[in-house]
C-alpha cells in the first residue's frame, strides 16, 4: 500500500469522526489539529478506527507521528505493509 493510499484511509476515518468539517482543503504537511476542530478524544477515535477497521495498533508513544496527513502516511505505510505480508 502506498503512502497516498494510507493517507486516503486516514482521511476517510477523519471524515467519519468530523462529519461537519470540510476536508477538501486539508493541507497534508500541516498539523491536523491546526486546520480543524480535533480534540484529544477525536484523536483517540483515529487510533481506535485504525485498530477496528484495519487491525493497526498505534502505541501511545507514537501518537505524535499521526500529527499530519503526510506523517500518517510515512508512519502507517510500513505497518500496513507488515500486515499485508502477514497475510
Amino acid at each position, binding site marked *: 500500500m502506498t503512502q497516498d493510499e494510507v493517507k486516503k484511509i486516514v482521511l476517510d476515518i477523519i471524515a467519519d469522526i468530523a*462529519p461537519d468539517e470540510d476536508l477538501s482543503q486539508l493541507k497534508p504537511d500541516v498539523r491536523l489539529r491546526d486546520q480543524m476542530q480535533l480534540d484529544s*478524544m477525536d484523536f*483517540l477515535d483515529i487510533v481506535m478506527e485504525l485498530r477496528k477497521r484495519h487491525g493497526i495498533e498505534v502505541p501511545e508513544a507514537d501518537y505524535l507521528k499521526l500529527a499530519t496527513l503526510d506523517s500518517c502516511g510515512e508512519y502507517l505505510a510500513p505497518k500496513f505493509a507488515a500486515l499485508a505480508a502477514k497475510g
Partner: protein
Amino acid sequence: MSLPRIVITGVGLTSPNGNSLAEYRGNLLAGVARISRTEIRYMGPLLAGVCTFDPLRYQKKKELRVGTRAGSIGIYCAREALADAGLTAEHLVKDRTGVFVGITEHGNVETENEIYAISKFGYDTKFWSHYHNPRTVANNPAGEISLSLGTTGPAYTIGAACAAGNMGLIHATQLLRLGEVDFAVCGGVSESIHTFGIYAGFKSQNALAHHEDPNRASRPFDKGRNGIVISEGGALYTLERLDDALRRGAKIYAEIAGYCVNSDASDYVLPNPTRQAECVRTALQRAAMSPADVHIVSTHATATPMGDIQECEAIRAVFGEGCPETWVNNTKSFIGHAMGAAGALELAGNLPSFSDLVVHPTINVDDLDPQCALPGLVLNQPRKVARVDTILNNSFGMLGINSTLIVRRYVG
C-alpha cells in the same frame, strides 16, 4: 414563611405523537396514538414509542456521534422550551441557570452498545470506546444540555425511576425558592427504547404489552390490558420565580401549587396505594387545596394488570365520590410509557386545558375494568368541562418512589 411563587413559562417536548406542544395536544384531542413496531436487539420486532424530531436542528453531526440519544432529546427539548419562553441561550445568565433532568435510568443503552461492539472483536476490551464514560455517567443528559446552552450553573439528573419527570420540576422549584438559581430548565427525558435490557426485564416480569395493532397496545384501565409499551421522549420546561417572569413579560402556562415525593418502603416493583394516597394528600395539603379543588388528575397508570388497580385504589381513597368537577385521564394510552419523561410529558399534554377547558381522554378502553372505574374517568373522547383551574399529575416508580405535582391556573 412565604416562599416565592414559581411559574412555568416555556415547554419543549418530543413525544411519539408530536414534536411540539401544539402537535402533541392536537393528537391527544384527536385520539391519535403513535406506537410502532421496531427491532430490538436480540429480541426481534417489539412495540415502541419512537420520536421523530430532527436532532440536527440543534446539534452538529459530530455531537450526535459523540453524545447520547438522551442528550439529544434533552437538547432538543431544552432549546424548544427556551424558544417557547421567548428566549435563546444568549439571553440566559449562564451561572444562574440550572438544568434538572429526571431520568429513569441512564447508561444501559450505551453499555449494551459497547458490549455488542466488542462482541464483533471476540470481546477484546481494547475495542471498548473511550466515549463510554462520558456517555454513561448519570449526569449525561443534563451535562449535554449545559454544553449546548453554555450554562454554567448546576446541571444534573435526578434518578427516580418512572417518577422522575415530576421530579425535575419539583427540584427546580426547590432551588428557585432557595435562590440557588434564577432560571431553570427542567423535566424528564428517556432513551429507554434503545436498550434491550429494559424490554427483556419487562418481558420476564410478564409486564410487556402486546397487541396486533401497535396503537391499541397501551390500554390503561381496560380489562384486556397486558402491560407496558416502552417509549422514548422528553419534556423540559422553563421555570422562573413569578416576579422575574412578570418583569420580563413572560407568557405563564401555570403556577406550581404543591408537590410531594415519598417512598413506599414495601416492595421492589409492586406499588403501594396507601403511600400513593399519602403522596397525593400531602401535595394537596401543601397546595392548601381539598381534593374537590382538583379538576384534572393525570394518572400514572402504565397498563399493568396490578399497577392500574393499585393507583385507582389510591385515587379513590383521596377523591372518592365527593368531587363532581374532578376528571381523571391518562396519556400513556397514546404514547406508551416514556419512563423518565413520562410525568413531564403527561403534565404537558394537560396544560392546554387551562385555556381550552377540554380534558383529553384515555383511549383504548373498550371494556372498562370495574376495579378501575373511577368517578370522572374521561374515556375515549375528550370532554369539554366547565372549569380547569388545577391539574394534579401523578408519577410513580420502581423501588416505591411516588411523586405528585400540582399546578394551577396562574391568576395575577
